[in-house]
């Protein structure tokens, strides 16, 4: 009888791998947006302070 090689079930690892990818990328994109907004607010505040002075 011939031995047949079956494809291993590695679906869970596939899901984990891509979950890590999408999770880290989402966190990084959100961090970019948040940091940009905070900088904009800080710039507005500093410009106000500069004009007052």
């Amino acid at each position: 009888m011939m031995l047949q090689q079956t494809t291993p079930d590695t679906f869970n690892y596939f899901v984990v791998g891509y979950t890590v990818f999408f999770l880290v990328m989402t966190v990084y994109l959100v961090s970019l947006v948040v940091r940009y907004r905070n900088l904009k607010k800080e710039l507005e505040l500093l410009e106000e302070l500069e004009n007052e002075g």
Partner: protein
Amino acid sequence: METKPRWLTVLDVLTAIFFVVAVFLVFVFAPMERTMGLVQKVFYFHVATAWVGMLGFMVAAVAGILYLIKGDRQYDTLGLAAVEISLVFFFVAIIMGSVWARPIWNTWWTWDPRLTTATIVELIYAAYIMLRQGIEDPDRRARFGAVYAILGFLSVPLTFISIRLLRTIHPVVIGSGDPSAEGAFNMSPRMKVAFFYSLFTFSVVFVDLLLHRLRMGKLAARVEELRLKVSA
């Protein structure tokens, strides 16, 4: 304040479209590899993220050289932006590689030459970000950043060639590797399409992110300048 240019919005949309197509090619179009199963598909984005990592570290080194020659602080902003993005992508590449390794090598991690050198690269550039924060004078910080990015880049080609020169279990995608490598496979034409398209897409993603991070860097420089002015 500088508004977002229209061409950058167009690039954002194009990047998103390229990315969705890449996901389709990897998840649906590329066939499942028979000996590894679905986890082999991790390989496409693993290599692409590692590529972006190395590309960004190279951009930072070039920006460092240009800063030392011209003394323009915009090159420092470019170097920092490139390192930050690459650090994230390289981290993802290492984690995805570890997830792939678990069913294929039967371990999450091994101190193989490629994995070791990749970890060293990640730590070198993490230190770049941390050490910069400890320098208050912008010119000194930029000079330090430039020299560090140039010297730090020496670790990148070392990582790239480690699997080609040293005895390793990490497979080589392009070119011939160590025969003892575990998890190597021949790519079918459809796999090649998904692989090269992913590399292309991630290069575009890198450029798009770099442009956004540059805008943020310029804003941060303006804030720092005003902060010094107001507090003086």
